[in-house]
């Protein structure tokens, strides 16, 4: 079959807020799980200002390395049509969080397992003004990795979400859309 030309991307615009975010969108880890970690940070524009209307999505392997995922990220109540939250057992591997008025996001998740020797969480950024989403990766540690190895040191540093010394099991990952310390964004072809 000849390859069909793809449907073009468009910006998510400013008014997705009543449609895309869902309660518990950042609670990827089952509540109270002892291995849960926090990944958080800010999204900045080219003037260094926080972006208060970005929406950030996360996809990752489960702690066992599985990339099968599971349904139920946005589990629904058939009575009211509302959101029930995740079922507390299955690990869906998916999170979606709008930035707040400070341009900040937070997700709570479980550390991804193999297949990657250096664990990372895949990140996709949407925002008003961004005509086409941007992919990046939050590596939870530095280490031997083909993508990291291909980058100059200052560029490589933008992908490393190091643990914060003053917070327990908390990693910081800021996303700079443009300018100094611009985050490395990825093209999968």
């Amino acid at each position: 079959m000849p390859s069909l030309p793809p449907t073009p991307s468009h910006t998510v615009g400013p008014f997705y807020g009543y449609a895309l975010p869902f309660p518990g969108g950042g609670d990827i880890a089952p509540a109270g799980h002892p291995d849960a970690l926090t990944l958080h940070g800010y999204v900045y524009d080219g003037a260094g200002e926080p972006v208060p209307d970005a929406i950030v999505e996360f996809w990752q392997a489960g702690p066992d390395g599985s990339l099968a995922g599971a349904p139920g990220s946005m589990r629904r109540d058939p009575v009211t049509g509302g959101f029930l939250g995740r079922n507390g057992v299955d690990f869906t591997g998916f999170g979606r969080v709008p930035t707040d008025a400070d341009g900040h996001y937070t997700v709570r998740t479980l550390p991804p397992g193999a297949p990657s020797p250096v664990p990372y969480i895949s990140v996709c950024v949407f925002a008003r003004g961004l005509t086409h989403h941007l992919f990046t990766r939050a590596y939870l540690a530095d280490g031997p990795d083909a993508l990291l190895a291909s980058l100059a040191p200052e560029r490589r540093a933008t992908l490393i979400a190091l643990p914060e010394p003053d917070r327990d099991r908390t990693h910081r990952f800021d996303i700079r859309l443009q300018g100094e310390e611009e985050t490395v964004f990825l093209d999968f072809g």
Partner: protein
Amino acid sequence: MTPPPPLTQSDIDGEIAGIRTGYEKARAAGAPAAHHPPRDFPPYRSSLLRHPKQPLVAVDGDPEAVELSGPVFGHTDVTELDHDLTRQHAGRSARRAHHRLRAAARQRGPAERGQLVELWQANASGRYAHQRDQHPAPLDPNFTGVGRVLTGDDGSYSFTTIKPGAYPWRNHENAWRPAHIHFSLFGSAFTQRLVTQMYFPGDPLFAYDPILQSVTDEAARARLVAAYDHSLSRPEQSLGYRWDIVLDGPSATWIEEGR
């Protein structure tokens, strides 16, 4: 000091024409077609500070890349009423006309089965159910403007909704967005993620809209416009439109099939 003169539609039209001329020259010299908009598209002013200036870094040849798989959704994530945006409240939505949208989502190869399609839009008056939309058009207590559906085995999806109104925005003086519906799609891999907007055929605002015109390739732009399909219209009820969506980006399954 006098403030700068307001940015006019004519200014924006000139910028769009200049970018298009450059694109067409590049095409004539053998450049490949650009299916997606450039992230740096100055006529859409919000793009100025929100696009990376460094080139994207290619990730290819890594069969274990996490992005070659993606999140999954199922019948727990969608209710049976989600596909009908006109039936989510006690009363009837204000409308000019009901519309049925029906089409298929596909990968550049096979159809996308059981994938989540999300949709959101302004109401018939061109107002979003969002606090920051202060355009002085009425909200509709019987219309929120959010829908979800899972694609069928053949990749098909269907929504019933109302036609959204055009609305003003502040990109430049006298800027108006053509009627459009926002779509969000997941394919079988995170690489195939797509957020886009669908338009209705024949809208006179197309040429003036820097968001639609951010897609500089004419054939690509045309793929964002639904087609009226009389066989989908229902007597005394709704007009039917067809809009096929094609996702790109590699996936683990697709590579196995011999991309």
